[in-house]
């Protein structure tokens, strides 16, 4: 249990003008761990992902992956270091096929140049075949074979979410960020996705951070849960601890009351 954490986030604060999206958040993610982040709408969950992946630069704090600082690095650089993500609103390359989307996940592992690729010689050829094999494995793993040659824009929503997970896995990530992986899914699709997330942890041993509003899913899958509200950390603990925490109940109740006020 003393293994060094994969990711450490320390006292991160991020503001957009007057809006403080993240207010002094700290947590770490351990090897093989499934770490969940929950909180009401606008709590700052997606912003945490954007800080880790280099899209936003926080005013304060530190973020390290395997001890190396990620702050100030470009999103491309951070992807090269092994951080993969899925997006809250699917961000696939919708005119491209499932295969091509997954091949793009391999982009950072491509070591051959333009001329070699055009001439289709030596290294380019053997390397591309290797990437295609890796992609085919993921297609099998996520049961996407039936859809492999379709442009992803045409596929059902639940399948697109799965393709996005596949593209992230194609990166051979050291850390996977899942932003609401089952949002908008029906029960069956949700159960499928839950199974795939468990498989990723068990078979591929990729540590994950999952943002999700589906409490049942979070409580079933997560090793630890962090609760945030208005960008501020409320508590972090096992699902059972978090569910009992009166502050969490208050935060969610508060959210509900605002919701009711808005309705009335």
């Amino acid at each position: 249990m003393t293994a060094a954490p994969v990711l450490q986030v320390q006292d991160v604060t991020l503001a957009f003008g007057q809006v403080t999206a993240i207010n002094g958040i700290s947590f770490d993610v351990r090897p093989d761990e499934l770490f969940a982040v929950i909180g009401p709408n606008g709590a700052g969950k997606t912003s945490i992902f954007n800080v880790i992946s280099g899209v936003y630069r926080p005013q304060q704090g530190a973020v390290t992956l395997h001890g190396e600082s990620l702050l100030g690095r470009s999103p491309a650089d951070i992807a090269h270091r092994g951080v993969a993500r899925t997006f809250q609103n699917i961000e696939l390359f919708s005119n491209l096929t499932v295969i091509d989307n997954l091949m793009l996940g391999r982009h950072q592992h491509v070591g051959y140049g333009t001329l070699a690729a055009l001439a289709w010689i030596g290294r380019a050829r053997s390397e591309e075949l290797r990437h295609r094999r890796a992609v085919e494995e993921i297609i099998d793993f996520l049961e996407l074979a039936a859809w492999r040659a379709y442009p992803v824009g045409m596929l059902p929503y639940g399948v697109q979410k799965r393709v996005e997970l596949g593209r992230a896995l194609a990166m051979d990530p050291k850390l996977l960020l899942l932003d609401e992986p089952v949002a908008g899914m029906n029960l069956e699709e949700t159960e499928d996705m839950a199974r795939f997330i468990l498989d990723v942890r068990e078979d591929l041993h990729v540590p994950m951070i999952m943002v999700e509003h589906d409490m049942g899913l979070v409580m079933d899958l997560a090793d630890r849960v962090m609760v945030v509200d208005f960008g501020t950390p409320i508590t972090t603990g096992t699902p059972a601890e978090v569910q009992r925490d009166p502050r969490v109940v208050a935060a969610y109740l508060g959210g509900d009351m605002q919701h009711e006020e808005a309705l009335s």
Partner: protein
Amino acid sequence: MNELLTAVFSGLGQGSIYTLLALGFVIIYKSMGVISFAQPAFMMSGAILVSYLSPRLGFWVAVVLGGLVVAAVALVVERLAIRPMVGKAVFVIAIITIGVDIIVRVVAGAFVGADPRLVGDPWGLDTWSLGGVQVQQRHVAAFVAAAVIVALLAAFFRSTPIGLAMRAAALDQEAAMAQGVNVGTVFATSWAMAGFLAAIAGVFAAAGNPLDQNLWIVGLAALPVIILGGLDSLLGAVVGGLVIGVVEALVRNYHSDVFPDLATNTGSLAPYVVMLLVLLVRPYGLFGTKEVERV
């Protein structure tokens, strides 16, 4: 009939030049969402540079070298004048490209000089006769060159890592970055490619006649082409270029039959009339994406 075919062939030749120019506009538009009005200046620079290089190096070496030098200039312009503005309003960047266009054009134009300069092409105004139809050799050459370049571009975007990265960045920049695509490299590559294409177009536009300061006006015809084809469509640039070229040639050819009293040939206006019609009827062009309607 022969007259019609002659006009069509000359239109395809001129249209190939428009295609090369329009491809550069579209490549930059797809990578940055900006129309670069600097293309006419790169086109003119290419022709002028080749006119200096070809007496020493021969025409073909001069064309390739001239294209590469203009690509390098475009790369520098992108890095110094455009990259720092990324994230600002598209309108602001477009204005900057107009500034770049004027500066580059004035500097390059200073080298045109008083004596007539030629790009040194082997065709001049010679023609071939295909069963009675007169075809200018320079038009055939432009068409073949455009075909080869389009084939190379297709292979580039289909099978090279940077080509695939450029397609990804065009479709969804945020997601592309999350896959490790460096958008800076994508921007730089798109400008270099556009510069190269414009330079080659400039050489063919100048072939057969001495260079003059107004050569860049040919580059403006790329605007009707991309409006017709669609701002974000490479296929649109190819089809649109050829269509605009042929329409222009046909109008030019039959002008005096239709408007015997009008001295100014309406051929040069035809591309812009087409552009206005397209903007009214189908603002995203033949092959463009529907959301991409205005600059």
